[in-house]
């Protein structure tokens, strides 16, 4: 898969930010927006253009939870594990998602549709338990509601 990376997609981002000091995180965020994750080749290209060593880029990339080094599914489920969600039984929702999709935290379904990631507080505590799927927030989750959402997403993808 890595062989198909089109590095020219990065040119715009690098032209804009490569010489602006302190922009590494911004560059990585744009890179992830383009590819869905941080491919090895892209990191090497960023290193060439910015002069920042790949080891340092990896150091920054692995420090922040936002960055991924593997491709993710069409839908990235971010399940909130904050205190309010925990108090309102987010564990049940986690179990439901695992049972429905047969994946663990950090994994992607075989059909490449769903990836699951447990994350820190999403700041929608009054609707806890909460999950975000890509940029959409779903609140007041119950196991049944979660199953319904997953089903709808799966149907929408076809």
């Amino acid at each position, binding site marked *: 898969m890595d062989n198909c990376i089109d590095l020219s997609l990065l040119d715009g981002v690098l032209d804009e930010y490569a010489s602006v*000091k*302190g*922009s*590494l*995180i*911004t560059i*990585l*965020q744009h890179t992830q927006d383009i590819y869905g994750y941080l491919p090895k080749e892209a990191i090497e290209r960023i290193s060439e253009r910015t002069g920042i060593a790949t080891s340092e880029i990896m*150091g*920054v990339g692995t*420090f*922040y*939870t*936002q*960055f991924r080094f593997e491709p993710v599914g069409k839908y990235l489920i971010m399940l909130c*594990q*904050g*205190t*309010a969600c*925990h*108090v*309102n039984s987010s564990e049940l929702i986690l179990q439901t998602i695992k049972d429905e999709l047969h994946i663990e935290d950090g994994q992607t379904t075989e059909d490449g549709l769903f990836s699951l990631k447990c*994350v*820190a*507080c*999403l*700041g*929608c*505590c*009054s*609707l*806890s338990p*909460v999950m*975000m799927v890509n*940029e*959409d*927030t*779903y*609140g*007041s989750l119950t196991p049944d509601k979660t199953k319904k959402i997953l089903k709808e997403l799966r149907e929408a993808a076809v």
Partner: protein
Amino acid sequence: MRVVIGQGSCGIAAGAEKVRKALIKENIDARVSITGCIGMCYLEPIVDIYDEDKLTRLVKVSESDAPAIAEYINTGDRSKIENLVVTDEDSEFLSKQTRIALRNCGIINPEIIEEYIEKDGYTALKKALGMTPEEVIEIIKTSGLAGRGGAGFPTWFKWNAARNSEGEEKYLICNADEGDPGAFMDRAVIESDPHNLIEGMLIGAYAIGAKHAVVYVRAEYPLAIKRLKNALEQAREKGIIGNNIFGTDFSCNFMIKAGAGAFVCGEETALIESLEGHRGMPRLKPPFPAQSGFWRKPSNINNVETFANVAWIINNGGEAFAAMGTEGSKGTKVFAVTGKVKRSGLVEIPMGKTLRDVIFDIGGGMKTDKPFKAVQMGGPSGGCIPADLIDTVIDYKALGATGAIMGSGGMVLQNWHQTHARDARAHHQGRGQRGRYRAARRTLLRHQGRRALRSRSDGSEPCTHHHQIFPRRV
């Protein structure tokens, strides 16, 4: 008539956008617009109908209610919407509050600068620019405003230190990396009243002599980033940010940086490291950011809620702010009340009220029949305050004396169904960058083992004594 739909993140997640689309499809004789979060998150989606100044507030609205709402607007027939109108009891959730930081939230359209200007927006900035920076700092000193991010450090002192620090280039930074689990007031302010934040920051930048302002926002808040960008653009067009603001020689430019997900970046020196594109590892202090911060230049960092109070203070005077609260804690504080509470949302009240006022009087108590056990305050740096300390006064010192802290204002309520040790692990998001966090984790695991054994042997509920698992933030 005007129809206004609450579209903060909570409202949208509850279905507000679907309601808006459904209402637009109905042929209604009113202007449909949006607002941010009024803080009554448990009643979302909320639709406000203004007939001149008369407000009819509809709650828990779904798209299927659109025809009934249209009928009310077009014919005045209320019969089909009676069941949606907010109850008197729920209205008290707002009427019992005193709103300064949240004064425009859920009222104005956050995407239109004119609506903020109509509410006396940017008059405080104009007023401040007519004073000397020292006078501005003096007003903030009189107000007693203290850092709302958790530490409670006097704002004027930080501003003064940054002002007196030598150097031409200075930075004013807003910490919007709201990481404490259970806290979401900063998100609400940015999504609902971004110009209030911008105005507070501009006044701060003028006071310390900064030409550059930076907002560091969590990447998990895409809507907040979008609305803030839009607000900055509008302010720029009006000449409110940029060069020679309001024709004075004060110039200030803004930059937004999105965080990348690291709890520790709420700590100011870690935040600066992250702004510079590095791993968010805290720096040793001293030197403090006021001497050597962003790019090693004098920098001042305040929390969103702190800035959200500034314009009001300049317009109403430091004394008016200081008239509220206790001896050591002035003004109001916003709390995000969540967990097993009946009315979950944002509560802004004067300091000096008690936890009982927030949790029972305004929050309505527990949502299930299991009794109140404890309230977790201050995120991982805070602690759990048990039921027998419910009459503790909201004041930095009084809350500190319980072993918890005021923190950024997250209040997660627990009932008797929950065990503290398990919850503690859930809300611990620090990643061990600091020695004290690592030590805390060991203590926690020890507690957990012991508590697990105890529950198994006698089958009783674990004791309610507060245990301070996490040390206080420095």
